[in-house]
Each structure stands twice: as structure tokens, then as C-alpha cells.
């Protein structure tokens, strides 16, 4: 039997974020919360292999109770069990503290019911850090394959997995022993339209809620703000650079406008550097 775990995070849909033009603050109101898209694709791949090999998918998420909807969504997409790690004391965690909590929970799930693969998203789109997956792998002393684009083969008997990962230069085909942690690109799998019985099950599903003490106890020095070495010191809108000259082709005519622009480029030495370089 195959057992996979997927770490999922709820994020604000950053493609919908607005900045208040007067205060420069983020307008959070009305920004829809979604499952981190990379996590959703990772989950789809985990479910795909579950259906192929027979087995089970567990999802875990650390966050406030509002994350329950995201866990339900994971059930809709085919997960069997959902765990929400939720406690006020976890608030303010940076990636180091987050990886501590997730690693402890994954170790516990693994002890109950051994895991073969652990799926993470490549990164969460609210922070774009891509740090939690590698952090968890280190804590669990587990092999990791980042930027996974395809799981070629899982050999449950031989205890290996073959994964394709994409780097800037090439695609690597990597073999690692099970259990392995993967961080996934969107190409890993298409998100299917869930069958109605799965949707109905998800709507009735109540995830397990794990607190700071139950069912496992976390070290209070390693969670939340206390367990986070980094702090946000300042937030602001990016400064505007100084604008250059503007020429209007409608007023001057296209020919003049272009020759004026090229002239400026010529004078700053750019054009000859570029054209001369051939």
C-alpha cells in the first residue's frame, strides 16, 4: 500500500491583490484565499499514484482555523485524511519554525503509518521563499528532489523512486530511496475536476486539529515568533526611479521621435557599444 503526505498551505490569491493608492497598504479585504497552486498540483500527483498503486493520501497544513476550507478542498481532490495544525502559539512562524512543526507532524504520521513520498509545492506564492520543503527534508534527514516535474516510477518493493527535476540548464533524472520528499512544479500533474462523491465527502469532512500539545508536544522555543530567527523590520512600496525624457511620436512625427530617442541612446554610448559589438 502506498502512503503519501502532502503539505498544503492556504494563500491569498496574489494575482488579485490591490494596494491602496493613498496609504500604500495591502488591501486584504475581498482577496480570495486559495490553496497554494503548486501544492494543488503536488496533491493531484499524489492522488494519481494512490489511485494507480492503491493506498492513501494524508494532507497536513499549519495555519489558523480558516485553513479548514483548504483541507476540505484537498479531500475533494482525493485526499483521505486531513490534519490541521492550529494553535495561536504557532502564529508568526518563519520558514524555520514552520519546517520544525511540519517535520514533527510528518514524523508522527510516518510512525503511525509509514510514508513513501512526501509532496511539497515548489514554493508558496505569498512568500515565494521555497524554503520549507528543503528545511523539512533536512530535519527528517530524508532525500529531497526539488523542482520535480514528473514522477517516472515508484518501486514500493525495491523502495526507490525515479523523478525528473527541471533546472535552469537541463532536466535531471534522479533516483532516490523511499521515503523521499519532493517539491513540485505545476507541470507535475493537471488538477482534475473532482468526482461528485469526493466533493460530497469533502463537504462533510472535519479535519483533525492538532494543537501545540495534542497529540504531540512541540518545543515552545522552536515555534511561532520565538522559534523564528527572522523578523520583518520594514514594509513599504518600492521607491520610484527617476523618469527619463519622453518624446511624443504623435506630436513630433514618428521619424523625429525615433531619431531623437536613438540620438539619446547614442550619446550615452549605448548604441555604439551595442552595434559595434557585432
Amino acid at each position: 500500500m502506498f502512503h503519501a503526505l502532502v503539505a498544503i498551505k492556504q494563500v491569498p490569491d496574489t494575482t488579485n491583490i490591490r494596494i491602496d493608492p493613498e496609504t500604500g497598504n495591502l488591501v486584504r479585504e475581498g482577496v480570495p484565499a486559495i490553496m497554494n497552486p503548486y501544492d494543488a498540483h503536488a496533491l493531484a500527483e499524489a492522488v494519481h499514484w494512490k489511485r494507480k498503486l492503491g493506498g492513501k493520501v494524508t494532507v497536513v497544513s499549519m495555519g489558523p482555523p480558516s485553513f479548514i476550507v483548504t483541507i476540505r478542498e484537498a479531500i475533494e481532490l482525493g485526499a483521505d485524511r486531513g490534519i490541521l495544525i492550529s494553535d495561536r502559539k504557532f502564529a508568526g512562524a518563519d520558514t524555520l519554525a514552520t519546517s520544525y512543526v511540519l517535520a514533527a507532524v510528518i514524523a508522527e504520521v510516518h510512525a503511525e503509518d509509514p510514508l513513501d513520498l512526501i509532496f511539497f509545492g515548489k514554493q508558496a506564492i505569498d512568500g515565494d521563499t521555497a524554503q520549507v520543503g528543503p528545511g523539512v527534508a533536512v530535519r527528517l534527514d530524508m532525500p529531497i528532489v526539488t523542482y520535480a516535474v514528473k514522477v517516472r516510477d515508484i518501486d514500493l518493493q525495491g523502495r526507490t523512486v525515479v523523478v525528473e527535476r527541471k533546472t535552469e540548464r537541463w532536466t535531471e533524472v534522479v533516483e532516490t530511496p523511499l521515503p523521499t520528499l519532493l517539491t513540485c512544479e505545476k507541470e507535475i500533474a493537471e488538477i482534475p475536476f473532482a468526482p461528485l462523491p469526493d466533493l460530497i465527502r469533502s463537504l462533510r469532512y472535519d479535519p483533525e486539529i492538532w494543537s501545540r500539545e495534542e497529540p504531540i508536544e512541540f518545543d515552545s522555543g522552536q515555534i511561532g515568533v520565538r522559534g523564528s530567527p527572522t523578523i520583518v523590520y520594514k514594509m513599504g512600496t518600492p521607491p520610484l526611479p527617476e523618469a527619463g525624457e519622453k518624446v511624443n511620436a504623435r506630436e513630433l512625427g514618428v521619424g523625429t521621435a525615433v531619431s531623437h530617442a536613438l540620438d539619446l541612446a547614442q550619446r550615452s554610448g549605448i548604441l555604439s557599444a551595442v552595434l559595434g559589438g557585432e
Partner: protein
Amino acid sequence: MAIRRFWVFIEQEAGKVHPVSWELLGVARMLANQVLPEAEAAGDQVTVEGVLLGYQVEPIAKEALCYGADRVYLLDDPVFEHYRNCPYYQTLAYVARKHEPEVFLMGATTLGRDLAGAVATALGTGLTADCTQLAMGEVKGAKQRLLLATRPAFGGNIMATILCRQHRPQMSSVRPRVFPMPERISEPTGEILKEEVLVTEEGAKACILEFVHAKGESVNIEYADVIVAGGRGLGSPEGFKLLEELATELGGVVGVSRPLVDAGWISYAHQVGQSGRTVRPKLYIAAGISGALQHKVGMQNSDFIIAINNDPDAPIFDVADVGIVGDLYQVIPEMLKQIRALKETAA
């Protein structure tokens, strides 16, 4: 007397160094200089140091000295021939524990980002990813200057400055091309120190079976000298031909804003911006691009920017050295004509 070490991970694959490593040596030097006065006053020493892992890569270590490293720690072993997370992070964590750097910078490349999170966790320290500004600044309550690492957050709409007060090293990953390439010196004075390699093949946990190179041309817009970029204002794939023609004329490559990649007109490798590549060409021509923050952060460090847009209030003009308000379908053909003429008179 203490030594304040500013570390840079020298990234190489298949014996080829990633140029971001040199950019980071430049940054490390800049940061080191910012603490120099307070260090001298306290009688401390400040050094810029590189760490290099690989197999038969000593020439790269020498090259690192030319880009300003005072010292390079070299870990040369067959186990490092191909990059793998486990042996690399364990080794970096080991040398970092031994030498206790104050600041540790890595490139925010696929390799660097795979590695940085693992190293930071192993060292139990903070890491700020994808920084676009770095400085050593005075912070209330801190005895020494701290690394102020600034990065875009929430889809690039906001810049957040992150601190790591207590834990060392203060780690950051930095995108290629955000910082300029430092001058290369031909007579470096720094030294190379060979470090003992403790990891073994058995501990590597992963075996690379194969490298598959993508078919077709591979673009590398990050290090191109000229980029002719187009956005949604192109309107139709026909506009693309114009872009390509101009790019070819200027010996450059084509870049695009995200919607064109989303629309499937061109591959992701051509996307400029926050979720694409950061570029720093000599000349950047932006045609039919409005200049959303997420696009600007990827190209505003270009040496010279020409923007073409028919909306005089388009924000792209704020970063342009010269803006042409007009229809790109008139402006680009005219530009082609004039550039061809210029080239002829030059010849």
C-alpha cells in the same frame, strides 16, 4: 580581535561557474566595506570569502580570487561532481560551523534555492530568499550593524526588509543580475584553503541517472546585452515578427511580459520580471508593456531603457531613459529603418 567573515557560495555546474557568484562577491565586498569603520574601531578584521564545492574545480577557485575574494575554501571531491542536495548542504553546514561567517550569500538560482533552505535549517538560522537590496545597517538595540535584506512580497506589490537578529550566519539568496558584475582583477592577493571532505557517496541519498538537455535553442536572456521586449500591446502574434526583426538587427534576444507567456505565444524562458528572469542588458527596449511593478523589478537595472507605449501615462515611462509615446507598429518599423541606416553609415 574577531574576524567578520562575509561569505559567498561559488556556484558551478559541470565546471562552469554561474556568474551570479561573481556578482555576489561584489555585494559581499560592498557589505564588508559598510562595516569596516565599526570593525576597525573595535579592532576587528573583515574578510570576503568564497566557498566552492566541486570536482577538479581549482581554476574556479583562482577565478574567485580575481573577483575579490580574500580567501576561498575549496572542497574538491568526486562526490561533488554533480550537484546533489544532501552532500552539498551537509558540507556547507560543516564548514560554516567551523568558520562561523557573519553573512552568507547564495544565488537565487534553482541550485541555490534548493541548497539555501537546507543549509539554513541545518544551521538553525534565518534565511531571506530572493533579495533585491542588501545593506549592513544600524538597528536599534544591536551592537553591530546587521544585514538588512529587502525582498518583494505579496506578488511584488510590497517590499519587505527582513532582519535576523540573533542567529548566525545571516543568510540571503540573491537573484542573478540584481547586482552589477564587479571588476575583475588580474593579480589577486587572496588565498585558497583546501578543506577536508567528510561526506561520502553512500551518504549522498540520491543518484543522478541522466541529464536531459532540452531540445531546440536554449535562450539565456539573463546575460543578453540587448533585449527587445514586447507585451500585451503587441495585440497579435504578428507583432512578434517585428520584435524578432528588431532583436536580430541589434544582435539581441526577445523578452516578454507575463501575459504573453500565459497566452502560450512564447516559452517561459523569455519572461522578464518577478516570476520570470531579472535582466540587466546594456539596452532594453520595452514595446507595448504597461510597466507593472512585477515587470519593472525584472528590468529596471538595465543600463539604458527605451519604452514605446501609446499611453503617455503608462508606468513603464517612469523607469525609461527615453520614452516614445506612440504606436509600436509605427515606431518599431521606423526604428528598424534608422538603425539599418546607422549601421550602413558606420560600415
